[in-house]
Every structure is written in structure tokens, then in C-alpha cells.
């Protein structure tokens, strides 16, 4: 089984650790990731207007590549995952979009209609490896740690397209946290938006949002919050001082538990 992997730009720059831990853990768990060739930026944000075709072509190229190499595409960055998964859904379900996109791609000899399967790293752990197997592979259980999962919005919504977990009451990350030997902390704000790119425009807004989110996590007893999104990580980390909650990538705690972190 080949696990094609789309890292995305941020994981090559700001979030190199996130990427490295992810790959190392996948290898340790027997599902090594193969980075796809010549991938391009997914665009970072899923375009909401239906006539935006060109910006989604890079995603479709990646999907078509995955289709030609085993049929599975794994993502780690929540934003890339959102763009790729939604695009894959659209090209399978929206005839008009599929036709126009394929017209563009015909020049490259690509014909693609949503055949590949896009799975997030968490789904790789849950459905391919299995959390029981993850639990067995843990070398340093995170006993005593109280970890809150932070899903944000991109990982789960829109629920009918992402189809990973219940968007209003998810449990996939909590199950992972439990498998790693830590205590998951469920808090209501875990699927609320951190403010995202609005950080560029109005830094007060993400500050307010993050205070709310981490405040809620802290009130429920979390000492750490984990995320699968570099942008959420940026916002959460920036405004985490008041709450006293540590912000880490999900692959960070995973790598710690599997003992694959160097140094």
C-alpha cells in the first residue's frame, strides 16, 4: 500500500517539525509516507465561488497523481486537507466543475473525476493503523498529561464533505490522545474558529477568539492543546500566555509517545 503524501507549503517552511514528526511517526507505525512529485500549493483556502477553477487545478493535479499511484492521498495540514478533500468531492459531484477543470487539464493529459481517496493523517492512524495498534506502539506513554484536542473549523467542516467525524462533537483526536496514554480533555470550544487569516487584518479578533478557546480548555483542566493546523498553531501560540496552556502539534505529542523525536 502506497501512502501518497501532500505536505503543503507551510510544512516546508514554518512548520517543518510538524511535517518531520508526522513522517517519522508514520514510518514507525509501518505506514511510511511517500511525498508526491512536483506538488504545488493547494491555494491555502478553499475558494467559495463556484467559478474559481484555475486555483483548484494544483489540487486536482495532486489528486490525479495519487490516483495514478495507488489511489490514496494523505494530508497532514488541516488547510490543505480541507482544500483537497472539498475539491475531490466537487469534481466527483459537480459535473460542470469537472468538465471545466478537465478541459484545463487535458493539455497535461490528465482526466480526473474524483476517484482518489483523500484521508487526513488522523484517519490514517484511526482507519489504516488503528488506535489499538498505535497504543501498542507507544514507548513513552504520556501519563498524567491532560490534553485538549483543538479541531478548529477546517478539519471537520463542511461535515458532509469532510466526512471524518461528527463536526459538532468530534472524538477522533480524543481517541488518539487516549491511545497515547494521556487524558483527553473535552471542551466545547474545540471546534470553534481561531480567527484564521483574519490575523493579517485585525489581530484583535484572533486574540479574542483564542482567549475564549484556550480559556475554555483551561477551565476544563487541559494543560496542553494539540492541533493539526499550522495557522491555528500560530494564532493559538501567539495568544496562549494568559491561559497557561501549552500549544503543540498533534504529531509532536505523537512523536513523543512513540519516542521518535531526536534529542
Amino acid at each position, binding site marked *: 500500500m502506497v501512502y501518497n503524501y501532500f505536505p503543503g507549503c507551510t510544512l516546508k517552511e514554518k512548520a517543518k517539525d510538524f511535517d518531520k514528526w508526522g513522517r517519522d511517526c508514520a514510518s514507525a507505525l509501518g505506514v511510511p509516507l511517500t511525498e508526491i512529485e512536483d506538488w504545488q500549493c493547494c491555494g491555502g483556502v478553499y475558494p467559495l465561488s463556484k467559478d474559481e477553477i484555475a486555483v483548484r487545478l494544483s489540487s486536482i493535479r495532486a489528486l490525479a497523481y495519487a490516483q495514478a499511484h495507488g489511489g490514496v492521498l494523505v494530508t497532514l495540514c488541516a488547510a490543505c486537507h480541507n482544500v483537497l478533500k472539498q475539491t475531490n468531492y466537487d469534481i466527483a459531484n459537480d459535473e460542470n466543475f469537472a468538465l471545466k477543470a478537465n478541459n484545463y487539464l487535458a493539455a497535461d493529459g490528465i482526466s480526473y473525476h474524483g476517484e482518489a481517496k483523500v484521508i487526513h493523517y488522523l484517519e490514517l492512524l484511526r482507519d489504516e493503523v488503528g488506535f489499538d495498534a498505535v497504543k501498542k506502539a507507544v514507548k513513552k506513554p504520556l501519563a498524567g498529561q491532560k490534553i485538549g484536542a483543538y479541531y478548529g473549523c477546517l478539519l471537520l467542516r463542511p461535515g458532509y464533505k469532510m466526512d471524518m467525524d*461528527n463536526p459538532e462533537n468530534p472524538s477522533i483526536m480524543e481517541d488518539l490522545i487516549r491511545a497515547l496514554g494521556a487524558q483527553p480533555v473535552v471542551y466545547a470550544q474545540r471546534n470553534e474558529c481561531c480567527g484564521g487569516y483574519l490575523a493579517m487584518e485585525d489581530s484583535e479578533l484572533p486574540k479574542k477568539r483564542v482567549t475564549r478557546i484556550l480559556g475554555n480548555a483551561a477551565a476544563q483542566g487541559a494543560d496542553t492543546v494539540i492541533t493539526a493546523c499550522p495557522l491555528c498553531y500560530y494564532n493559538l501560540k501567539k495568544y496562549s500566555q494568559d491561559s497557561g496552556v501549552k500549544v503543540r502539534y498533534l504529531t509532536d505529542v505523537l512523536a513523543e509517545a512513540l519516542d521518535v523525536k531526536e534529542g
Partner: protein
Amino acid sequence: MQKIGVFVCHCGTNIAATVDVEAVAEAARHVPGVVYAQDYTYMCSQSGQDLIKDAVKKYGLTGVVICSCSPRMHEKTFRKAVSSVGLNPYLLEIANIREQCSWVHKDKEIGTQKAIALMKAAVAKVELDAPLTAGETPVVKRALVIGGGIAGMQTALDIADAGYDVDIVEKNPTIGGKMAQLDKTFPTLDCSSCIVTPKMVDVGQNDRIHIYSYSEVKDVKGFVGNFHVTIRRKARYVDETKCTGCGLCMEKCPMKKVPNEFNLGLDKRSAVYIPFAQAVPKVATIDPNYCLMLNKGVCGLCSKVCGAGAINYKDTDKDIEVDYGAIVVATGYEIMDVSKYDEYAYSQSPDVVTSLEYERLMNAAGPTGGDLRRPSDGKHPKTIVFVQCVGSRECDSKRGGKPYCSKICCMYTAKHAMLTKDHYPDTDIYVFYIDVRTPGKNFDEFYRRAVEQYGVHYIKGAVGKVTPENGKLVVQASDLLMNEQMTIKADMVVLAAAIEPSHSARHLATLLTASMDTNDWFTEAHPKLRPVESPTAGVFLSGVCQGPKDIPETVAQAGAAASKVIGLLSKDKLTGNPCVAHSDEMMCTGCSQCADVCPYGAITYVDKEFRMPDRTTKIRRVAQVNPAVCQGCGACTVTCPSGAMDLNGFSNSEIMAEVDALCR
């Protein structure tokens, strides 16, 4: 030689706009056997019917084809018209050129061609029609009401008042239904218990009404006037005839940790229980899931303290069989499970409740004795947020959302808001709504009172998130009229959860062969003209099982259903349907396939002696149809491998003639 008349209806513009009706009539005049053809604006009107009658008389018609709407609509009307002038009603055929033609086509040319084809098929069939005469069956003068809520009780009382016997089958240990759980009723704010419990007593004391409580309908056979019903009487472990309802067993029962259904699990009851003080019948029931004696074989306290000797641990489910002339469905509704609406934190905080739970918290007979205290810490809530339309008017079916409006929520929320303000004037109340829907007598006035006199904050907008935090519920919402985001720190959140059909309704509909819509509400025979009858003859609908309703509407419909039942039971005999199956014994091979598919059990097999060509006799096994039980569904005719089974009025040769005409 056949003399056939063809009558083409315009149905105003319903047909005439898409079908050239004159061309259809003209085409009919050229069909062999047709001696008269005419189009007319409204064939179903008195003058239209007169046109048909006059033609039958004038031309001595031997068959009539009406090109009009669906036979479901007016076949009866036209059959009555032709039989009044001496033509057998079964020598009339309808060509449905409305529902199956004009309404589904846009192109007039294509529509006209199709209408002509349908007309020709009907002519081909009417040529082969034979006169049929309906038989008669006696009517069992007893009615069954399924469900003992306010709808079922009212229907039963009205039928009993007319002098007929009625049985109520109720799945719970007591009748009373949801209304018995309510505190006050809108818009008059009269006490629900005070009006429903006397009704329960009336039902319990009525000589003509028998209550089968803690029972369910297990099987239904037969047909209108002659239903044969199996009722399962679930093991109650208490002898109903001996129990006096003293309640001593409940006091002594050591197992007191059972979630109390009557209070929606907000408090606990004992394993042997009477649901509430005014229960009818006031008889105890042992909950087999929790009783220590039944589960572990130790205890037996209730048996020891029962002075009447009513406890019987060896009780078992029993089936009884009763015949009925009519069946009324009054299965009511349930509150939708809102645990999938996780943004409202229903499963995360006990202080997020459904409106029915709130009703119990306000009720003097509820878990808090009517003192409004929130479930988590028993404190008086100072700020309460009501969320409307939770699960209603929602298209996300994955979460169990309902596309319909639950109808009662706007009014009961206004009621809750006002009652709360009455008892605790310092409470701050917010109501988030999509629309406030208050059609009904004195309804809008009621809602305006909540806004204007009581100062309830009605906010048009949606709640996006409820976050339980430090003993509060942080409600994040948007105010659409102010275009603002808002955050409210509430003590309680009340969800107006959608109502949905009783979970037993789907199974019951299958037993009754009664149809349902996509939301599992029972379908009425006609949405306007036959609102309390199911399309299945002899099955009637009472209350919310047919769609969301408030109490006055439910009671009105219950009475209407009763009057329909009374009309049916007042007849001594029912004219049957002559379109029943019959078997050609010479062709029947006795294979039993028809009997296997018959949903009504109308086919039996007999050994019969036949004379062979060489003057010997032979005994063969052949099918026989009981015409009183056969409903004419036709399942046997298409199953029969030898073509021996045929349906009167829809014979194999008639259907083939229609197909031939269409293909010509």
C-alpha cells in the same frame, strides 16, 4: 357490437392548456366501436355528468371512457352517474390525462399524442369490460383505538357515546399520553392535568371502553368491517384485576434508581411503579429491566407487602385476538433526540434541557415540585435562553433533522417564558427564533403579551454554540436584525426540539398497510377532503400521528375520526369491491404460489374432483379465492405461472388489450 362513448375533460386549463382536448375527442370518433365523443370544461360538474348520462341514454352506450383526472379522484363520481342511467358502473374506464399527462408535460403536441394513446388504451379495455356486482359483508360493531393519549381518548369517548364498544391499546402502563406530562396549556394557561385527568377517568369508567394498557398491536388481518387483531399484553407481573393501586409496593421496593420516564429521566422511580398519581388504570407494573427478583431471583418484597396478592413474578406476555370493524391510529409523537445537535451541548450539560423536560421542571407534580431549579446544582436559573427550531425546518437528515415545522414550539416557548416570568419576575429570558409562527385563535396575542408585557427578549437569529464553563452556559449567538454577534452567560438553555412520529408508527403502518409520508407521519386519504381517513379502508387517523398539531386541533381531529368510525359502524353491511381475483380451476396446477404472496390470506386450496375427457374422474388440488377477504391487489395474478389467476375488472386480457392499444 359495442357502442362506446368517450368524454374528454378540460379540467379548466389543467388539461386543456397542455392537451388539445378537441383533437382527443376527434381522434376518439375514429376509433372502432366509439359511437360518440365529446369534450367539456368540467366533466365532474353536474352539467358534465348530465352530458354523460344523456349520451348513455340517447346512444344506448355499452361502455364509457372518461379522459380526465386520476381515477382516485373521480372514478366513483362517474360510476355513480352512469349507474343512475342503468349502465353497470364497471363498464366505465378512466383515462388519466391529467396527473399522468397534462401535469407532467409542457409540450402540447406531445401531450395531445399521449392523451390520445391513453384514450385508445382505455377504449380497448372497456371493450372487454364485463358488468360486475359487488357483494356485501357484515360489519363488526366494535372499534379499536391504538394509542391512549388525548387523541385516542377523545376518539374512544366519542365512539362510546354513540353506543359502540371501543378498545384502547396503549403501550405504556397508563393512558394520558404527552398531555399528562404538560404543566399548563396555551393560550389560556389552564392546567393540563386538570383537564386531562378527568378525561382519563371518564375513559376508565366508561362501560363501553376497554383499556388494554401496557399492550401493543402485534398483528392485523382482515379488512374494513372485519379486522382481526392480535394484541400483545406485555407481562406486567401484577394482576390488573387484583391490584388496588395502593402504592405500598412502590414504597417498599428497594430498587429505587430507575430513570423515571414520566419525568423524562430527571428523577428516579422504583422498579415496581405506577407512572403518576392519576394513572388510569391505577395499577402497578414491574419493570423487568430493573426488578431484583426478576433479574437476580432475590427480593420479593413487593409480593410480601401486597395485601391483594396481585404480584405474579411468573407472568408472561399474552396474546389475545379480537375482531373490529374499524381501527383508529392515535400513536402521537415523540420528542426528537437532540444529542446529535452537539453545538447546543445537550449531552455535555444537564442544564441544557428540552422543552418537555422544562415542562416537567415547571410542573407541580414534577421532580422539583414545580419549583424551577436547574438540574446540575438545584439553583434558580436567573438567565434562560430558549432556542427555537432545534431539528425542525432543517434539511440535514444526518443529524435526524426534520424538514417540517413542528408547529407547537413557538407557542409553548412563549408560554414557558411567561410562566417563568410569572413565578420569578427577575429572570432574564432570551428566545432565539427563525420566525415566530402563531396562527391560531388568540395565539398571536399570546406571543405579543410575552414580548410586550413580560419583556421577554425575542431575538431573530441563531445560536451557534453553547459552551458549559464554570457553572454557566456561554451562549454564542447572532442577532440578525442588529447584525451583531452576541454572547450570553446563561444558567439554563432550553431547546425546542422537533417532534417526530412515535417510533412504533412505522411498524404499525406496515401491519395496517396504511401509507406514510417520508417523515413517517400517516398519510390521509385526501389532504383536504378526507383528512382523518387513511387510504386503507377502515383505518382512521386521530391526532399528531398524521402531522404536528396542538391540543385543540388534536381534539377536533379525534372527534372527526370518531364520527367517521361511527358512520362506518352504523352500517350493518358494507358493499365490497367486486374487482377481486378468481382462479380458473381448469388451468390451476395447485402450486401454492398465489397463496404465498397473498397479503390478506384470501386464497385457500381445496381438493376437487374433475371429470376427464375419457369419463374418468381425477382429484386435483386447486386455488379458491375468498371474495370477501380479497382486496384486489393483483399480486396473485402476476405470480400465477399458469395464468389461472385473474382479476375481475383488470383481467389479463384487458391489460394486454390496453398494452396492445398503446403499442399500436
